[in-house]
């Protein structure tokens, strides 16, 4: 470097001390440069550090700036002026900033991998940027600039540093990936949401569709029901027409072939109607519209009815059909008799259809008893007792009704006998207990046991399914539609019970079901429509009978039916034993053998026994020397051939054979015939079986009938005479008064209300007045009557006869002194009720 002595000036600022690195500036006059000189002077004046413009430094030729500090000699006053400063100046301190190396050193680390371009400018003069470092032209990545201010400490000057990347930053993989990932995630989330939304929309759509379909299905169901109902109604009407016409046709004169054809058509028609009814039933049940009635009814009479339906068929097939109802089952229960009958008919019908030999046995027990039975059975099993296959003589291998094996072990004879014996013996106590349970529900168990072909094991699961039969060929062979059992199941379940079965192929089936019925007091039932329930004849009460039957189950059934008629029965298993027990008149064997009025012999027992036993027996009786009435011998049979009948007659049996299945009413009729009791009239509508009641009430009573109408008098008199009363007629109120002058002989008076001159009310009033007068007179007197020697108040029962019972003015009747009213013409039920109030049924006949 060239050095020359500096020019002559006022002031000089030579470098006295310097750092080693810049030793080349030693003794250089700082004021030689114009700018430097200004800087120094300024620094001296302001007392602050002053920076130069960027220039090329002497040594390195880098761009740099020099910072100059003034140094003052003495303490300056607190706020010195420039002059004072200049005065006090001792020297100057300067530092050179090599911007280039400064920047490079500082930023070398920052640049990192990428080249960072730095430009440092002096921007004191905003229009004229002085480059301190960096290339003149800005290149590199101008998109990303970072500007920062540099402060060297000189307030006059401003410096700016601009950093930029030399090259555009390559796409940052991280960023890209992150962005990409975010994008992907965003997509996924979006997709999920979208999918969810779509799903919801789909589900909603599906829901709406389902709703619509549901409406359509329901509508279709309703339509179907309506259709079925309409169609079946439409079908039923002409069907009934057909059946009606067939009935009329059968009433006319027909040749036998014609009759045969017509009857076949009728049977088919009836079957068709039954089928339609079944299908409708099913519909009703499915629609839940089936309602059960709750009326009082008699189970035993319903079973009788069902038996009569099937008696001929079973007799033709040679099957023994029997019913047994346990004593503990109340006489009257509250439930739906029609549906109950339907179930029983269905089960028994099935049994009859599918049984060719053996028996069909219907048992009704209280549910608690039935359960106890099974427990007993279990216990006997445990005790090692075997109930099946007891080898006895003859064909009876099993202790069942017919001797054929039955499917259900639990209903075996031993258990059955155990309970039925108990019941027969402890009669009275049971009645007491049942009366105490006023209106509780009673659970009954009904078993229908048959010895038919059974149900194949494979089909047993489908038995209760509608329209399904055990075998596709069943319908062809045996007929039927297959709905019956499913309807029965529904009905049973509606009655609060369950139905089940045990079946062994080729052995038989036993169907059992339980049902819950209500109970009611007997009086309630009597007051209701007793007209429909024909009571059993009571003329047999107290009779004693002996039943000869080797089959214990069958004998128990017979005994049950006799019991319903009030006949006490004992059972022996063979004629010999019978002869032995009856022959010894009055001998005290165990249990006190009774002297029977009738002996009922089961045909099988008689035939398998010895012939001529009866004659031996008769001989035996005579030998005892007692003359007593010979008991009548009656044969019981399921079927009987002519030759057997003749033999029976020859052996001393009566002409009447009681045919099985036993029904109480039929047994009663046969006994009536044999014993010569009761009326000769046949069973017909309007036969008052209750006439026996009325008869006992009215027999021998003297009754006055008052009516102005001749015809009515005759009819009323005739009706009352039928019941055994003594009737006299009067044709007006006046005449009645005359006849009823006290003392009179009448027990009761039937008075017509509407009569000319003096009507019934008036007449009654007068009669009562008459009576009260006489009664007053009687006080204190001892009245001797024809019949009784007691003190008696005159009060003849007067009953009004009116055609209009419903609107009868009950009050008026009572006010005028009448005791009640009866319908005109007489209705038995009504008559009985009215009359029963006055007449004691047990009163003896008046002479």
């Amino acid at each position, binding site marked *: 470097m060239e050095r020359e002595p500096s020019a002559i000036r006022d002031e000089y600022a030579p470098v006295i001390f310097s750092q080693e690195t810049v030793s080349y500036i030693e003794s250089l006059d700082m004021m030689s440069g114009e700018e430097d000189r200004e800087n120094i002077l300024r620094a001296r004046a302001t007392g602050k550090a002053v920076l130069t413009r960027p220039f090329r430094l002497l040594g390195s030729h880098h761009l740099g700036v020099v910072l100059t500090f003034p140094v003052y000699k003495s303490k300056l006053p607190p706020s010195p002026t420039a002059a004072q400063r200049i005065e006090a100046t001792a020297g100057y301190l300067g530092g050179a900033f090599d911007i280039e190396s400064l920047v490079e050193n500082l930023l070398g680390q920052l640049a990192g991998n990428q080249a960072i371009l730095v430009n440092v400018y002096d921007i004191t003069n905003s229009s004229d940027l002085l480059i301190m470092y960096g290339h003149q032209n800005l290149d590199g990545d101008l998109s990303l600039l970072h500007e920062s201010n540099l402060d060297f400490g000189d307030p006059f000057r401003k410096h700016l540093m601009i950093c930029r990347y030399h090259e555009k930053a390559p796409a940052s993989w991280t960023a890209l990936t992150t962005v990409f990932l975010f994008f992907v995630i965003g997509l996924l989330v979006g997709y999920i949401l979208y999918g969810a939304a779509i799903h919801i929309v789909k589900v909603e759509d599906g829901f709406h569709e389902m709703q619509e379909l549901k409406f359509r299905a329901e509508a279709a169901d309703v339509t179907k029901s309506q259709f079925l109902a309409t169609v079946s109604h439409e079908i039923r009407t002409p069907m009934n027409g057909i059946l009606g016409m067939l009935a009329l046709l059968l*009433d*006319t*004169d027909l040749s036998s072939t014609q009759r045969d054809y017509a009857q076949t058509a009728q049977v088919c028609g009836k079957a068709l109607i039954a089928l339609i009814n079944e299908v409708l039933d099913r519909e009703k049940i499915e629609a839940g519209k089936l309602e059960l009635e709750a009326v009082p009814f008699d189970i035993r009479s319903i079973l009788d009815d069902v038996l009569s339906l099937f008696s001929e068929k079973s007799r033709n097939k040679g099957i023994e059909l029997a019913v047994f109802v346990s004593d503990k089952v109340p006489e009257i229960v509250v439930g739906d008799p029609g549906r109950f009958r339907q179930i029983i008919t269905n089960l028994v019908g099935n049994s009859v259809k599918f049984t060719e030999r053996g028996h069909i046995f219907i048992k009704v027990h209280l549910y608690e008893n039935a359960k106890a039975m099974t427990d007993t059975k279990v216990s006997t099993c445990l005790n090692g007792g075997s109930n099946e296959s007891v080898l006895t003589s003859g064909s009876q291998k099993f202790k069942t009704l017919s001797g054929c094996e039955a499917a259900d072990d639990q209903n075996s004879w031993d258990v059955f006998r155990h309970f039925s014996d108990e019941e027969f013996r402890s009669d009275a106590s049971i009645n007491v207990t049942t009366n105490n349970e006023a209106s509780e529900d009673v659970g009954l168990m009904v078993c229908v046991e048959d010895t038919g072909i059974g149900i194949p094991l494979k089909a047993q699961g489908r038995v209760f399914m509608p329209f399904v039969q055990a075998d596709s060929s069943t319908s062809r062979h045996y007929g039927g539609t297959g709905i019956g059992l499913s309807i029965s199941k529904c009905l049973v379940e509606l009655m609060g019970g369950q139905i089940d079965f045990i079946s062994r192929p080729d052995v038989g089936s036993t169907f059992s079901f339980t049902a819950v019925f209500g109970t009611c007091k007997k009086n309630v039932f009597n007051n209701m429509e007793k007209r429909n329930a024909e009571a059993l004849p009571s003329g047999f009460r107290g009779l004693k009978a002996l039943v000869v039957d080797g089959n214990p189950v069958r004998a128990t059934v017979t005994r049950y039916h006799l019991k319903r008629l009030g006949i006490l029965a004992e059972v022996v298993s063979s004629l010999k034993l019978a002869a032995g027990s009856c022959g010894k008149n009055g001998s005290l064997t165990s249990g006190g053998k009774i002297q029977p009025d009738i002996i009922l012999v089961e045909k099988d027992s008689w035939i398998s026994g010895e012939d001529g036993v009866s004659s031996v027996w008769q001989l035996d009786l005579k030998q005892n020397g007692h003359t007593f009435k010979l008991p009548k011998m009656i044969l019981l049979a399921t079927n009987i051939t002519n030759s057997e009948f003749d033999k029976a007659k020859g052996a001393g049996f009566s002409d009447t054979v009681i045919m099985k299945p036993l029904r109480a009413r039929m047994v009663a009729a046969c006994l009536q015939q044999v014993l010569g009791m009761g009326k000769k*009239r046949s069973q*017909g*509508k*309007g*036969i008052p079986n209750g006439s026996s009641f009325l008869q006992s009430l009215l027999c021998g009573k003297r009754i006055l009938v008052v*009516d*102005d*109408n*001749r*015809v*009515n008098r*005759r*009819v*009323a008199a*005739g*009706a009352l*005479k*039928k019941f055994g009363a003594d009737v006299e007629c009067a044709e007006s109120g006046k005449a009645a008064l005359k006849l009823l002058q006290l003392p009179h002989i009448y027990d009761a008076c039937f008075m017509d209300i*509407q009569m*000319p001159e003096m009507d019934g009310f008036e007449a009654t009033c007068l009669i009562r007045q008459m009576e009260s007068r006489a009664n007053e007179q009687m006080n204190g007197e001892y009245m001797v009557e024809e019949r009784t020697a007691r003190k008696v108040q005159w009060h003849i029962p007067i009953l009004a006869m009116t*055609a209009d019972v419903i609107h009868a003015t009950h009050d008026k009747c009572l006010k005028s002194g009448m005791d009640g009213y009866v319908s*005109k*013409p*007489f209705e038995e039920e009504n008559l009985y009720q009215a009359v029963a109030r006055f007449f004691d049924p047990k009163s003896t006949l008046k002479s």
Partner: protein
Amino acid sequence: MDSVVQLQRQLVDYTVQLFNEGFLDDQFNQLQQLQDESNPDFVVEVVTLFFEDSERLLDELAKALEQQSVDYTKIDAHVHQLKGSSSSIGAQRVQKVCIGFRNFCEERNIEGCQKCLHQVKREYSLVKTKLETLFKLERKVLAAGGSIPWPM
């Protein structure tokens, strides 16, 4: 001569027809049941009484309705009698007309009453003829040696 069975058949059919056509009702059955060995002609007697009574009543009714001032109470009384006796023997259709007749009486409807009288007369003669035929059939059956198959 027809056989007993055929005659019985005829009788039964005829009776059934009468019931179906409503000429007779259940009360007639009841009457038949009152007939037995001690009372073998009960039904015929009662029905004859009915015929006599009804003819008398119908005459009275005709007379009463021809009067200038109609006495409805008397007419009502007669109709009541007729109603009573017809119901006692089970002459259903006669009885029904009587009920209507009584209504007209209450309303004092002369035309209605006259119409009813006509109707009653007609029904009465119908049922009379029918019952007479019935009894004839019965006699035939009895004459042929059969028994009357009562009740239906």
